[in-house]
């Protein structure tokens, strides 16, 4: 049986948060993709999920509505991947951080 250390709880929390963000984005954008099959390090724009500027508006709005995370173009880097988005979410919204 896995020992439930703080690190383990933290990893589970992060795994669940990534999954929730993927579901929110894929669902909100109505993309024909299984959220569980999206790579957390895959770019959201360009070659990755091939999103456009209208999708940016949707992601920014969804992140605020679903997770209380506010994004402006100063944080453009968050669109690098789901992991970057969640890193920023945890940093800016301590309540989301499982630590």
């Amino acid at each position, binding site marked *: 049986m896995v020992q439930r250390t703080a690190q383990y709880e933290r990893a589970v929390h992060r795994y669940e948060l990534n999954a929730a963000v993927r579901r929110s984005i894929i669902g909100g954008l109505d993309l024909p993709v299984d959220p569980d099959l999206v790579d957390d390090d895959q770019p959201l724009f360009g070659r990755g999920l091939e999103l456009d500027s209208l999708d940016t508006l949707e992601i920014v*709005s969804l992140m605020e509505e679903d997770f209380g995370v506010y994004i402006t173009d100063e944080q453009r880097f968050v669109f690098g991947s789901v992991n970057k988005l969640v890193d920023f979410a945890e940093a800016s919204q301590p309540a989301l951080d499982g630590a």
Partner: protein
Amino acid sequence: MVEEKIVADQSSARPVALITGASRGIGQSSAVAMAEAGFDIVGFSQSGDSGNSETCRLVNLAGGAYVTHKVNVAVESDVRSAFRSLLTANGRRLHAVVVSAGITSDGLAATMSADRFDSVIAVNLRGTFLVCREAIKAMRKTGGAIVLLSSTSGVSGQAGQVNYSASKGGVNAMTQALAKEVAGLGIRVNAVAPGFTETDMFRRMDVKARNGLIQHIPLQRVAKPEEVARAVRFLATEESSYITGQILPVDGGLTA
């Protein structure tokens, strides 16, 4: 808490209009005009007025519900948190946004302090931008209408008002730019440019200056706030469904 009134009323089929500067003047008259057109009203003002305010009484009389938030539109965090509580608490679609919060702080350019200049830009221009930014996100899926309050000073410039004229000229350009940017989302953006209108803002002017101005107005009188509000209502509702990016003067012929 006042906000809860509208929460409890989530089932209401009445459309919702957000009006900044709703506590007084043109904002108050716009709230009443929109309530008469079947809207419930969410008001932003610096004082937050109250559930017992004159605006609340008049909106209720016109058949609308009224909820108020204390917001300094120049402060980003104020605007963001007001929108957040409005959207999460309310759960109802936002159909129209009227940006009427505005200030003057007149003086001659040569002696105007940078702070005096900035204070007017902060409320009239930055505040308008901050409200529009959140409004676009709130209306992104459903479309809607945004009406900004400009001024004839933003069209032709007014001596003694470089700060105010610049802010309203900025509002005019913002109206046109934003209209193009969000048309694809089904959001229309227009402005009303009142001339002199009988509100606290006008009453603060020097009496001699006020009387002198009237002789330059072809209709020979200042506007009542309700007359400006009717133009606001036109642009905020489906009555103007094919109009966007326009600045409508309501000025008794001043700029004709």
